[in-house]
């Protein structure tokens, strides 16, 4: 204690030496240790009983907490307190040093024992904002000449720098922590790849899926677990990362511990200083459910298309049977007539007779095959169920939605709800709606008009009937084609079978309805009607 008192004397007399001394004893310290060293040295230097340093806890400041507290020759516990009613309040709020040389107890009550004098110095950050303060208390009056103000300013600045550094460090730590938590706990997979595509870091979600040792993730190529069919696309995505905007997306199937999963990756190249190859950060997500749903939709679409093809086949077989039967009839009848002629003429040789018999037999066989085929395809069972036309149409629209979007066709709907139910084969009616919308889409694609709209309208029609209409803004029907569009095999399209409308009409007619093209001033409008189910008991609609 005494030796320190001796140095105090010299320090008090010589601020530069004080400065030097304190700087020497605190320069190696950072953080909490720096504040302790500073507070202790200053208390000794100006020979006061108590000193402490604080940082503000809020903004504007109303509460502070001590970072180091020296009293009666030792460090005591830190504390936090509210500024209101303390001499510190003025220091912090006004941002100036403040000296109360004597009779402090008459103005303020301090919870850590009464004091006679007080000296406070604010601590600023780089923007001159008060972020804390240093305070000195003593039991005897504190004459102003003991305080080398310039020296305190310097210490305050040094403390300020330290406080700021600490705060940034804390913020950094907090954000690092936040980042760590994010990476460690999110269900998205995070991988870091080197330029060669080797995994150099992977978060738990990734490691868990790919069953690597938790602590020693084996280095492996990102592409390793990827399904063979999806590798080209993935490598392609990685390749595009070399060029701006240095981001890419890809989806692939990967073999995980949970089997094959669909993963969607968003990849970013982390650009390094010139000359260094980029690393890649990938964030992946399991999209298996979504892909399955898409797959189901696609399958539905395929089933519908399949059904369309099947009934197209039926229609075709029937039309074909008629066409082919005509020549077969001639062949068979001609050959049989020849046989009859030659039966009475002895000079015809047996070979010719045999040939004629074979012609007839084969024509007969061909016709049997066709009859069989027609019987076969015609036998598609017609199921009947109660259905809501609006729902059936909504399902078809769902199926066509991606294509409509891709072709920039706006599909609008004007649906009457609720509609009375109809008794139909739902798949067949959906097929009709599907074909009609398909035709409209094809009509719109033929046509480079700006407006590409398909309007679906449903509603009650004549008594006891519902109607659904598909109206498009395409080129419409010329009177000449309008006459023939329902004929099987009539098509104006290059790869059209010309069977769509023929099938639609036979389906609608088999349901007791009607399908027609309704003449329009612009575009084409196809409308079908269906009889409404009898409403229980009332009989009439």
């Amino acid at each position, binding site marked *: 204690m005494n030796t320190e008192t001796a140095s105090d004397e010299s320090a008090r007399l010589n601020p530069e030496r004080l400065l030097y001394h304190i700087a020497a004893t605190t320069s190696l310290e950072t953080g909490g240790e720096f504040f302790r060293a500073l507070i202790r040295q200053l208390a000794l230097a100006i020979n006061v009983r108590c000193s402490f340093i604080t940082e503000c806890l809020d903004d504007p400041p109303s509460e502070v907490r001590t970072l180091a507290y020296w009293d009666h020759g030792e460090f005591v516990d830190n504390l936090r307190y509210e500024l209101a009613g303390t001499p510190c309040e003025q220091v912090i709020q006004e941002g100036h040093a403040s000296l109360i040389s004597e009779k402090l107890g008459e103005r303020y009550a301090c919870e850590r024992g009464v004091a006679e004098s007080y000296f406070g110095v604010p601590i600023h950050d780089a923007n001159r904002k008060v972020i804390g303060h240093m305070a000195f208390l003593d039991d005897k009056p504190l004459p102003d000449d003991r305080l080398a103000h310039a020296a305190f300013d310097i210490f305050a600045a040094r403390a300020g720098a330290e406080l700021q550094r600490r705060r940034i460090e804390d913020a950094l730590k907090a954000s690092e922590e936040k980042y760590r938590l994010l990476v460690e706990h999110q269900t998205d997979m995070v991988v870091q790849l080197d330029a060669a595509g080797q995994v150099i870091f992977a978060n738990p979600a990734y490691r868990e899926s790919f069953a690597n040792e938790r602590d020693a993730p084996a280095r492996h190529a990102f592409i390793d677990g990827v399904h063979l069919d999806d590798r080209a696309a993935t490598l392609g995505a990685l390749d595009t990362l070399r060029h701006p905007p240095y981001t890419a997306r890809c989806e692939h199937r990967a073999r995980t511990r949970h089997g094959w999963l669909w993963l969607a990756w968003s990849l970013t190249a982390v650009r390094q200083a010139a000359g260094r190859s980029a690393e890649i950060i990938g964030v992946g997500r399991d999209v298996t459910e979504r892909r399955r749903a898409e797959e189901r939709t696609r399958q539905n679409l395929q089933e519908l298309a399949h059904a369309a093809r099947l009934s197209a086949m039926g229609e075709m077989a029937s039309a074909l*049977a*008629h*066409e082919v*039967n*005509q*020549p*077969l*009839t*001639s*062949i*068979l*009848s*001609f050959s*049989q*007539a*020849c*046989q*009859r*002629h030659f039966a009475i003429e002895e000079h015809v040789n047996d070979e010719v007779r045999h040939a004629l018999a074979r012609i007839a037999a084969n*024509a*007969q066989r061909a*016709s049997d095959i066709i*009859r069989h085929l027609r019987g076969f395809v015609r036998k598609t069972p017609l199921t009947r169920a109660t259905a809501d036309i609006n729902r059936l149409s909504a399902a078809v629209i769902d199926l066509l939605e991606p294509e409509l979007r891709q072709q920039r066709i706006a599909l609008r709907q004007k649906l009457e709800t609720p509609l009375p139910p109809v008794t139909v084969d739902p798949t067949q009616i959906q097929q009709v709606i599907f074909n009609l919308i398909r035709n409209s889409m094809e009509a719109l694609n033929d046509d480079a008009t700006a407006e590409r709209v398909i309007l679906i309208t449903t509603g009650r029609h004549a008594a006891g009937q519902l109607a659904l209409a598909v109206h498009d803004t395409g080129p419409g029907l010329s009177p000449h084609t309008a006459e023939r569009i329902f004929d099987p095999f009539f098509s104006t399209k290059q790869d059209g079978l010309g069977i769509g409308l023929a099938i639609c009409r036979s389906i609608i007619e088999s349901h007791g309805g009607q399908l027609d093209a309704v003449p329009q001033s612009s575009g084409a409008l196809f409308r079908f009607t269906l009889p409404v189910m009898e409403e229980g008991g009332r009989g009439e609609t």
Partner: protein
Amino acid sequence: MKHKSTVFVVDDEPDVRAALAMLIKSIGLDVECYASPQDFLDNYRAERPGCLVLDVRMPGMSGLELQERLGAFEDTPPIIMISGHGEIPTAVRAIQNGAIDFLQKPFSDQALLDRVQQAIMLDAARRRDQQEYRELRRRYTRLTPREREVLQGVVEGKINKVIAAQLKVSTRTVEIHRARVMEKMQAASLSNLMRLISVLNTPSPH
């Protein structure tokens, strides 16, 4: 028989027409071919005996329509419908309208020729009946009212005396009328007369 039977073939397909013609000729029947129902109607004369082989599906007038139009004539020839379409409802309608059969293309020669021969026999029989009926009607119209009254009594199985009492004439007068009736109706015997009258009383077989 004044006319030989003819098979009329109506089909829009030239080869089918030619093949059927050749087949039908092979059993010694006459054939006439028409490319359309209208073509046939334009040349149709009811007195020509025979039968019709008719395709159901043809552009313009369908086989069924032709069948309906022919129904308006007195002596509709028997019709055999042929069709590549083979639709049950069409077949049913054709038969209901009086077609004697319905064949689905292609058919065996025997099936067609059997039907054709049946049809021609049917037509011939009808024509014979028709002719007999007309002849009897002609004879009947030559009877006087009194002779018709006597004939009525005879047909009802009454003896001359009863008829005479009913008509309030002598039995002798009845006998004279009765002889005139037999003569005018060209009946060889009483049983022959009874048959002729029964033919007259059945509705026209047209």
